[in-house]
């Protein structure tokens, strides 16, 4: 990074890099509880990053965003997930990840692709955090990859939520946040989604005696 | 329609009615001679017709009206055919009623009636004969049509009268195609008239007969009519063959004297034809029924060859 970049941008880039790192960590994490903790940490970093943007740009609604992120992603959702895990007795569930190195390798390829795709857009950006769009895209893709590789329901949902984190990073870093109405709506949707998922987990466990989604492969044609 | 034409027409019909059994008798006689048998009298067919007409008709119990109607219909068809084919003169008022194609149709109609009648009583032999007759029919018809096509191409007409006039009176040209067509026609005629080698008019051996199998149930006047119709058919085919391939001597329109002169010539031609027929029947053996397709297939091929020769050599040249 050259000297011309302001401190705030450097901070944001740092935060973004941490988020990406966390995404990799989640990709490789086998156990449920640490996974949720990692997710919470990602939310925390995301909130921090949003706060930096808010401070730098003096946009009021970004403060709200940062607060909302902190509340929702760093606290409420991990808490809900923790509760679920405890109630469902899946605390000791261990994901049998196949071939972590290969997954990581694919992850790296995805990061390259994401950076490559985002590059022309980043060049157009006039915001202070132009590089983060690529990172956000990479985060989204890593979360996607995580969802593909997981066979348990809760890690899959965590992957899903991590994807939302990536999206949020994109929203704040690339555009200084969406209009407030939209952000509130998104937050509400995510919350309701998690609650519905929670309901779902119980139903699934009741029916299948497990949260292993490999049991759910009966509806098929091929 | 001239009075002369009308008289000529009546005369032709009468001649056909009279000459047809005679021709059959003549063929039988020739054959007997050729086969070293003592021949029946020449007039034997007349005696037989007379006898049959006198006899009672014995009908099978479940014979339907169609069975009784068919002999008359067949007879009518053959009579019509004889009326159309120029035997003595081309000046026939009935001639435009049917050209050669329609003539094939007439024979077809007669065939349908006799086949249906054969199936009517519901015996094993009847339907056997019926289906074999239809078999011969559908094999012979394409060949006959190709023969007609060849002739029609030469004369630019399918009307028998026009063909005869063209061939006999207009110009004297040698048509090689006619040779092929003539042989094919002979083959077809043999098959159509239930002669050896396709059928044997004299047989009553169950499994070999075609025509005779169909008329087994007929008796009395019905049988007489059918026999007469068969003679008429032979006569019609002979006259057709003579008219198409040896048309010399047949009178032109409005020429009553020539018509009178044509009569002896016709008798001579028929006589020779009958001899030849008898000879063919003597030197050949009847073939199995499923050899008939080969026989008639050959006829078809010859006819097509004739047509192609016509198209290739005569039109181009």
């Amino acid at each position: 990074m050259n000297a011309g970049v302001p401190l705030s941008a450097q901070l944001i880039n740092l935060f973004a890099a941490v988020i990406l790192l966390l995404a990799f960590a989640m990709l490789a994490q086998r156990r449920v509880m640490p996974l949720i903790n990692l997710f919470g940490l990602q939310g925390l970093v995301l909130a921090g990053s949003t706060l930096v943007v808010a401070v730098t740009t003096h946009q009021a609604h970004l403060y709200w965003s940062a607060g909302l992120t902190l509340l929702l992603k760093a606290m409420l959702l991990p808490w809900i997930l923790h509760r679920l895990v405890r109630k469902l007795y899946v605390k000791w569930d261990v994901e049998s990840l196949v071939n972590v190195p290969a997954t990581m390798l694919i992850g790296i390829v995805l990061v390259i692709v994401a950076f490559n795709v985002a590059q022309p857009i980043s060049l157009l950006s006039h915001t202070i955090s132009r590089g983060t769009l690529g990172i956000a895209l990479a985060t989204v893709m890593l979360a996607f990859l995580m969802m593909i590789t997981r066979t348990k329901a809760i890690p899959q949902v965590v992957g899903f939520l991590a994807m939302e984190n990536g999206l949020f990073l994109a929203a704040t870093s690339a555009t200084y946040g969406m209009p407030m109405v939209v952000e509130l709506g998104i937050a509400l949707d995510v919350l309701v989604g998690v609650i519905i998922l929670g309901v779902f987990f119980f139903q699934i466990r009741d029916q299948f005696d497990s949260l292993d989604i490999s049991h759910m492969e009966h509806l098929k044609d091929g | 329609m001239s009075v002369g034409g009308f008289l000529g027409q009546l005369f032709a019909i009468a001649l056909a009615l009279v000459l047809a059994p005679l021709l059959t008798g003549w063929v039988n006689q020739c054959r007997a001679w050729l086969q070293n048998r003592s021949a029946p009298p020449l007039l034997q067919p007349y005696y037989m017709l007379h006898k049959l007409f006198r006899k009672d008709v014995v009908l099978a119990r479940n014979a339907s009206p169609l069975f009784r109607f068919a002999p008359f219909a067949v007879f009518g068809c053959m009579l019509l055919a004889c009326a159309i084919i120029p035997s003595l003169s081309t000046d026939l008022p009935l001639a435009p009623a049917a050209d050669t194609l329609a003539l094939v149709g007439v024979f077809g109609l007669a065939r349908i009636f006799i086949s249906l009648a054969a199936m009517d009583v519901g015996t094993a032999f009847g339907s056997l004969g019926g289906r074999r007759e239809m078999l011969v029919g559908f094999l012979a018809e394409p060949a006959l049509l190709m023969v007609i096509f060849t002739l029609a191409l030469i004369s630019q007409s399918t009307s028998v009268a026009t063909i005869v006039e063209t061939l006999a009176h207009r110009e004297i040209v040698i048509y090689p195609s006619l040779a092929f067509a003539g042989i094919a026609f002979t083959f077809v005629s043999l098959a159509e008239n239930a002669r050896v080698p396709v059928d044997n008019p004299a047989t009553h051996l169950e499994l070999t007969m075609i025509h005779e199998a169909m008329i087994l149930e007929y008796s009395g006047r019905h049988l007489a009519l059918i026999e007469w119709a068969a003679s008429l058919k032979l006569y019609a085919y002979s006259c057709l063959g003579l008219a198409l391939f040896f048309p010399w001597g047949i009178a032109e329109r409005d020429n009553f004297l020539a018509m009178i002169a044509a009569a002896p010539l016709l008798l001579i031609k028929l006589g020779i034809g009958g001899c030849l027929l008898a000879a063919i029947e003597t030197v050949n053996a009847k073939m199995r029924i499923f050899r008939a397709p080969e026989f008639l297939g050959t006829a078809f091929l010859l006819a097509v060859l004739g047509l192609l020769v016509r198209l290739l050599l005569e039109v181009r040249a």
Partner: protein
Amino acid sequence: MDMFVILLAIPLVSGALLTVAGERAWAPHLNIIASAGTFLASALLTVEIIAEGPRFAFGEQFFIDSMNVFFVALTAFVGMTTSIFSGPYMKNEQAHGRLSKPRLRLYKSMYQLFMFTMLVALTTNNLGILWVAMEAATLTTVLLVSLYRTPASLEAAWKYFILCGVGIAQALFGTILLYFAAERVLGETGNALLWTHLVDVKGQLEPAIMALSFVFLLVGYGTKVGLAPLHNWLPDAHAEGPTPVSAVLSGLLLNVALYAILRCKVLADGAIDGDFAGNLMMGFGLLTLLLAAFFLGRQKDIKRMFAYSSIEHMGLITFAFGMGGAVANFAGFLHMTMHSLTKSAIFFAVGHATQKVGTQLMADIRGLIRINPVIGWGLMLGTLAILGMPPFGVFASEFMILTHAMKHHPWATPILLLALGVAFASIFGKVQPMVFGETHAKQLPHAPAITPVFVHLAIVLMLGLYIPPYLTRWFHEAARMLG
């Protein structure tokens, strides 16, 4: 009072009311009355829009023009008929012991909320709110899909949730990119997600960003539309949910998702040179159509088969809009209408039929026409209609799509025709033995509500032979809006 507010308020309020008091005896009636009220409001709104032109509501957040008011009316109409159909249907389910009272309450409240989210999605001017409403539509229906709590329905709902959730997340990324592009032009005024503003400046939007944005939006909303290969959730969800839900999912939600894509396509077309968006849609459309057609022949479950048929038709419609131009857009809108009406009618008939026979397996359904001629003929005619047999309206739109394709994209014609032919052979081969033949099935405790089937089919039949001029004008304006 503002008709638009009423339109949105009725389902929202009644949804809330049913959540609270859904087990009362009058609840089913409320469901129907609310739906009828929504339809009435939409009809009045339509009249108003036709008379007075487009309008805004709630500031500029909502915008009703001739394009979406048509979808609103269609949605409200099918919503109403579905609610009428679901009355006796759900009673029968209850009588069979397949559903308990609390579940029925859940069903009714979620049904109304689902209608609400769709109406919001259709009328909002804000692409962000559009996204929120689409996600909310998923959330409200996911519990409806798993209403029976059977392993199969749970599996279907899970897949629905995850796949659509992931898909819609991509759409959010697309929306963010769109906002990013718009902000550069419109500034941070808060108008940067308002469609009406975006349309005005669509030529100035950065093509590179717009291309990426459209890809995300297409993949995102396309998942909800059921475009192959993103369609995998659709047959499961449609087959395992209660039939009224299948009817609205097939008949309405797919339309709404496609509507979202169309709104975005207008912007992408304006920004990008060449026909990038159109070509993508055509490609997806053809792939979807072809894939779905070959799936049809392998189906054993009747609802699943018709779900694939929905995918197939969505492919066709996507293709039509991909071609673009006045005629193709017109045909696309017409086909959406026809498909909504016909497919929901089919699901009504299928619902009654499966209830009568007690199975969704096609091999076990026989002789519907003898069990109940009305259901049998409903299914038969509906099937023929959806297969594009004249004189039903589906043929009219397919005719227009095909002829347009022949003129402008002749290479696509054989693919279209192959798919339609295979679909015909597959579906008809399965439906005919179900409708015809002998059977021994029993009577239902509650008489089926069969009127909706024939109301839908009658409209489809009429539109096949005669499209009234005002409808034509309407379609034309909508088509022009798409450019």
